[in-house]
């Protein structure tokens, strides 16, 4: 039955796309949960993670690798990009947000937009470096091909119309454990408890002896690292990176976070999967040009009937 195959295919594609969005969305929602800042620089941080991954591939000369060594390369990239994005996100917080901790939320937001511009331009510069890594540095701003380290073979057999590839496996194998681990950190560890306390009431948390600055720093570190993981799987899944990719990825992730209820981690994941699936179904059954309209239409509807998002807690204004 061809239409069943087609539908299954859209499910697979939609969920894989949604998973990548989810990892980025968690970074938004964590930061929002703790300091009520929509971190506009997050998408661009993710973009820089992808450039680091490409640089790693280039430096190690991994373009033609296959089999076990390619998987080893994937692990190296994941660690490198996650570490890089985590530290960078922590640095952005120290430089651009921490001095404004007690300023109005609007100043913080403007600072985030500024940080976003700086990161985008770093990406533009990075992409243009005259290294062999970037095909001789032709056209700084052009999208770059990311080597297909993960094969695109069909695990369901070459004659099957439905495609399920190691790329999809990679996406799931990276995101699911990360989400489980993160949930464990937030609900079961001392740090997690401190994070929840800071989110609930920073002043009270401080009075209870919690070093809130450290907790906020840790939140940025973890959120950034997730963005780094996402950037590697995004690059391996889509095989193209560009200095502008952070905008769309960030937009989707931000929408997912709001859809699910900003501040809620399960909400961000749910929102992301919904967006991934809706995008894919709309592309497949309607026309591509309606996709954005539908995604944002759903967002508007949900916010009208459930202003706190799908899984958001009924927001009580903080006193």
């Amino acid at each position, binding site marked *: 039955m061809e239409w069943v195959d087609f539908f299954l295919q*859209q499910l697979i*594609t939609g969920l894989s796309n949604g998973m990548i969005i989810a990892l980025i969305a968690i970074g938004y929602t964590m930061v929002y949960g703790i300091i009520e800042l929509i971190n506009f620089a997050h998408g661009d941080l993710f973009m820089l993670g992808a450039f680091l991954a490409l640089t790693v591939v280039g430096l190690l000369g991994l373009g033609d690798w296959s089999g076990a060594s390619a998987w080893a390369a994937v692990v190296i990239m994941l660690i490198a990009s996650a570490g890089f994005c985590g530290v960078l996100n922590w640095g952005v917080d120290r430089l651009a947000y921490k001095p404004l901790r007690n300023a109005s939320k609007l100043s913080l937001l403007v600072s985030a937009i500024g940080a976003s511009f700086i990161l985008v331009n770093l990406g533009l510069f990075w992409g243009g470096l005259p290294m062999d890594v970037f095909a001789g540095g032709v056209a*700084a701003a*052009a999208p770059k*091909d990311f080597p297909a380290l993960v094969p695109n073979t069909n695990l369901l057999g070459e004659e099957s119309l439905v495609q399920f590839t190691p790329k999809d496996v990679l996406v799931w194998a990276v995101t699911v454990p990360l989400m489980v681990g993160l949930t464990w950190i937030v609900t079961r560890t001392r740090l997690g408890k401190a994070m929840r306390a800071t989110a609930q009431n920073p002043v009270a948390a401080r009075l209870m002896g919690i070093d809130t600055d450290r907790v906020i720093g840790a939140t940025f570190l973890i959120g950034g690292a997730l963005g780094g993981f996402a950037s590697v799987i995004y690059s391996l899944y889509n095989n193209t990176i560009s200095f502008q990719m952070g905008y769309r990825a960030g937009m989707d992730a931000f929408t997912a976070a709001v859809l699910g209820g900003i501040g809620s981690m399960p909400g961000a994941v749910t929102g992301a999967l919904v967006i991934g699936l809706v995008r894919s179904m709309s*592309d497949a059954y309607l026309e591509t040009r309606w996709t954005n309209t539908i995604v944002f239409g759903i967002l508007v509807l949900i916010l009208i009937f459930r202003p706190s998002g799908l899984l958001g807690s009924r927001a009580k204004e903080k006193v």
Partner: protein
Amino acid sequence: MPLKTSMLAAVLALASSATALAQSGTLKIVSSLPRTGSANAQTGTIVNGIKMAIAEVGGKIDGYEIVYEDWDDASPQRGNWDPTVEAQNANKAVTDPTIVGYIGTFNSGAAKIAMPELNKAGLVMISPANTYSGLTKPGMGEANEPTIYRPSGSINYFRVVPTDDLQGAVAAEHVAGSGAKKVFILHDRELYGKGIADVFQKRAKELGVEIAGFEGIDTKASNYKSLSQKVKFSKADAVFFGGTTQSNGGQVAKDLRSVGFTGMLVVPDGCCEEAFIQAAGASNLEGNTFVTFGGLPPAELTGRGAEFREGYRKMFGTDPEAYAVYGYEAARVLLDAIKRAPTKDRAAILKAVSATKDFDGALGTWSFDANGDTTNRVMSINSVKDGKFVFVRRAGDAPAGGSKTE
């Protein structure tokens, strides 16, 4: 009184130098092209072509110094041409009386903005790259085109590239000629991409090819896997993408191949650049992907074109990319007109440009027709091999089936 005399002398000296300026002064040529963003690879070679043409006349015509300025019509925010910047450029050009020629734009959408402004000022504009038919040809675009671009009633806009109605048709003929029965058409919803896709669709229908779908894509999407699967399940045996590298042509090609679409993929000249191969990944383009181009690739140029190729290599140390020769040709035809113009003012130069006939150019011998279009309609079909464009065949000068492609 010594003081008065010296002042008088100074005034006299000033006056005489002013007259000297009027006789020999400077004539400024500007180009307005997207220099920030991914189009820079193409526009960089256009600018080189312009510089080369000016260097060939020694930077001087009839005692006038030719000054060239390379303007950017892109903004970092868009990474692409920006309507605001293009409008600023056009205004700046209009208000500077020493400017006698405006080479641009690269994108047809940008031309729409600059054209009426420059037209009112009677400043000649020559595009090395706009291919959207509606800019010059009545009945090819919207109902009010092209008169809306000509508020003064006369023509000041010229182009040295053949238009989309020719290129889209050539692409359709290539698809039909390959034996394809069903084609899926994608476009980027921009003036250029949608325009060429429309022409492709019309011609493909005429040739009896079934249209499996006609869709505008979201050019900022991270991938097109779902769309590509739709194409695959539609059983189309060819895909035409009307768009450019900047509107994500590379990702479209990549995803079509990644979902296992093995049919023919044809893309227009907006993808005819190294950046497209770089974005799509060379292995994804190998074999069944074809790029139409509104002219011949530099390696196929003969006569004066071959001289251009050699000169370019000598001057810049690299081979020219596809668009370089159009920058060169646009500048040369403008310089030629400046030379022929009896007085070196905008009106005379405009008149001289429109009188261009049997111009001995790097692209062959051609003229500007009544619409301001080149009469040259040689095109080529290229494929990709080992990460480089390779010439497949000439097309367009003798349309298949003897049909009219006007």
